[in-house]
């Protein structure tokens, strides 16, 4: 069976295309007849029906081996289009002559558009400019109707849902045509595309639309939430500033009777009436202590939180089934499986490495600032050891300095640590004075470490 996807997408696009005149139709109906929303919905149905009728007429007339001449085909399309418009107008003549004319015009236009759109590829039907025009028409309709009625009219009730529907179809068509374009650009054949890729893309698109919809529906709550966070932050800043000011004034003894430091509790701002001069601001001190502790122990706290998060994720992952599938194609075989926790854990190892590198660089900068030769020698050798550990070289506590150097050389042939080891040995065991030349060679060696490992 031939791939039905392009045909389905084509009819979906045509369907969305006939929703495009809806805002203008609604506006026209509202302006001329002040009619209800029901009539506009009938209008949508009429436009869709006439549009698809146009498509069907083109389909019938352009069947293979059809002997009808092109001129006759065109005349038939024009005649049937006008007839369809008249019939539609007649059906809705009960709502007035203007409605009848509007129905006739919109239906006939949709019919002719449908008959022409039939020949187009699905990606060429619902163009970006059309959708932008549709959005503009929507806004215009809303604005005009709102200006005329000065309140929300029932006529505009379906503008937003239909707009969303058009956008959803547009996104789907765009997504699928994107795959086509990517394949056609390099002249790849469609049959070489993995079978489920289109389906998978549609699912991803659906998730994206769902998330957008949730955001749209929960927009008020989100705005409230952001506002609340902002307000609380401002309050906290004011609180901290107030606390610092109070603490400073209490420490420097600037307070006077009647303008004493107010007691702050439960997030209250200091007032002139609150508290006595002798009261110690426990709440403020506690707050400051907490903030200081948070700053000082930020890394262990973050690590702990990460650990808890990891455990929670592991708990959730227990229910997850590791997918293992095999896909066979004409030319290849695919083996697909979900990464296990251990495989994902490898990533954390890399993060740790990055942290260690950062620490090493910090220590190196500190080393450059030290001027005392002895301290510099000690720190330099410490940096060398840390560097070896960073390169995942096992260093045991019983290893001598020469053992350590040999281990390093096994991994890095270019490593020239003879001098630094000798300097360090003489300094440590014979308590030799470290000369500026030796410090210089130490500096050069550490620079060399940086270049070897490209830290």
């Amino acid at each position, binding site marked *: 069976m031939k791939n039905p996807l392009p045909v389905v997408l084509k009819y979906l696009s045509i369907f969305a295309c006939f929703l495009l005149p809806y805002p203008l139709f609604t506006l026209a109906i509202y302006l001329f007849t002040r009619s209800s929303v029901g009539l506009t919905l009938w209008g949508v149905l009429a436009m869709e029906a006439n549009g698809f009728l146009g498509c069907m007429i083109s389909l019938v007339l352009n069947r293979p081996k059809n002997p009808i001449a092109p001129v006759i085909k065109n005349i038939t399309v024009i005649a049937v289009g006008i007839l369809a418009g008249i019939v539609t107008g007649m059906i809705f003549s009960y709502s007035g002559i203007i409605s009848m004319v509007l129905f006739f015009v919109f239906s006939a236009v949709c019919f002719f558009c449908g008959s022409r759109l039939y020949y187009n590829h699905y990606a060429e039907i619902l163009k970006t400019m059309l959708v932008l025009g549709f*959005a503009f028409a929507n*806004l215009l309709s809303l604005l005009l109707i709102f200006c005329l009625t000065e309140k929300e009219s029932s006529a505009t009730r379906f503008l*937003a849902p239909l*707009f*969303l529907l058009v*956008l959803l179809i547009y*996104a789907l068509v*765009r*997504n699928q045509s*994107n*795959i086509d*374009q*990517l394949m056609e650009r*390099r002249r*790849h*054949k469609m049959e*070489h*595309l*993995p079978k*489920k*890729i289109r389906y*998978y*893309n549609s699912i*991803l*698109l659906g998730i*994206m639309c769902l*998330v*957008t919809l949730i*955001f*749209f529906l929960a*927009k008020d709550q989100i705005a409230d939430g952001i506002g609340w966070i902002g307000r609380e932050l401002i309050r906290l800043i004011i609180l901290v500033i107030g606390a610092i000011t109070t603490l400073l004034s209490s420490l420097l003894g600037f307070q006077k009777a009647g303008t004493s430091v107010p007691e702050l509790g439960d997030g209250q701002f200091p007032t002139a009436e609150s508290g006595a001069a002798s009261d110690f601001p426990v709440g403020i001190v506690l707050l400051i202590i907490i903030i200081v502790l948070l700053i000082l122990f930020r890394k262990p706290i973050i690590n702990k939180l990460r650990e808890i998060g990891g455990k929670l994720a592991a708990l959730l992952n227990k229910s997850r089934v590791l*997918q293992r599938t095999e896909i066979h194609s*004409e*030319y*290849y*075989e*695919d*083996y*697909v*499986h*979900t*990464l296990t926790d251990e*495989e*994902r854990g*490898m*990533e954390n190892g890399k993060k740790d490495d990055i942290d260690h590198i950062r620490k090493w660089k910090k220590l190196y900068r500190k080393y450059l600032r030290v001027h005392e030769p002895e301290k510099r020698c000690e720190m330099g050798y410490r940096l060398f050891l840390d560097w070896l550990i960073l390169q995942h070289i096992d260093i045991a506590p019983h290893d001598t300095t020469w053992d350590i150097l040999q281990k390093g050389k096994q991994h890095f042939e270019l490593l020239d640590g003879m001098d630094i080891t000798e300097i360090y040995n003489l300094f440590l065991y014979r308590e030799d004075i470290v000369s500026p030349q030796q410090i210089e060679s130490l500096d050069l060696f550490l620079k060399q470490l940086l270049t070897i490992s490209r830290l």
Partner: protein
Amino acid sequence: MLLIILFAVFAQNWIFEHWGLKKLDYHCRLSTDEAVQYDEIELVETIVNRKWLPAPWLKSEITVSRDLDFAGAQSVVTDKSRFVPSFFMVRSYQKVERVWKVNCTRRGEMEIQKIVLVSTDLFGNVTLSRPVETDAHVLVLPKPFDMEEMFFAPKNLTGDTVVRKNLLEDPFFFSGVREYTGHESMNQIHWNASVKEQNLMVYQHDSTSSQTLTVLLNMQSRERDFSEVPVLLEGCIRTCVAVLENTLTEQIPVRLMVNGNISASLLKTHQGLVSTQSWGQEHILELYRLLAKLKYGISDSFDDYLMDISDSVTSSDIVIVTSYLTDTICEFIRLKQRQGIRVKCFILGRISEEEIPDDLDLFCLREQYNEQTQSREEWVS
């Protein structure tokens, strides 16, 4: 609502632009680094997505040597390369391993030349690409011909041939016993035979010669034209491989000499290929590797080459593999035969019966291979 939709689209673009190819590991390798011609090996692509963001459409554009045949109609073949697009969809935290069956259609050094990863977002607003470094390569060794099936001797030589014999007898080689003449030393007396014959008998020695082989390969396709005919040259190489393979069972020391070389720069300096003379599996494998790496082109015309090396070839046997026969080649063979060296010559090109000299040990391709030169390679494979 419009703002939210615009925000969603821009956020989608931004997310794919920043994280589309991040934490996405791609490796490509070949299952082996050495294979024999017409072997089927595997090309394995591995994609690991180590993030929550899936890759809705991912393509790896693999450029390999054109003689690594895989992916059939999915591949595009140019003069030197084969271009294969490989499409993936990778979910979050997923690993995909794709195994392609690759046929090594030709000998030589094959490699994965280039790989580019291409990804996109859901709407095609963002296209990301990243080159992938790879050093996967395979050395395809030539496949030996079935000599008995492929070649025949148009004129079987009968009668006496000159053999090379040393003047001094080999003291370690006993061919029998004979009567004592009075000139032999005491240690040459065969006491057991003497007792049996009731007469003094001595050991009968004989002269020996160690068998060594030199294979001379002609990388010139035609006598008067230096343009290469790959089918003929590949046939010559495969014949060489078959000859070398035959020496394995008898452990004959063998040397390979070619008027070509494994690098174009050596060809320019007129340096032919001369291997060491040795025997055994390792040596033969090394010769296979040399033959696999041989480039088209010649250091010298084969006639000149034969003149140059004539004195240095001192082995007991010579095998010449060539696409054509010239008077110089015939003269070379005759000269060597007069020196007591056995010379065989395999001719891969077309040759009429009148052109074949009566006094030479020649082997020609059987008729069915000669009739259609172009399809011969396919037939053999």
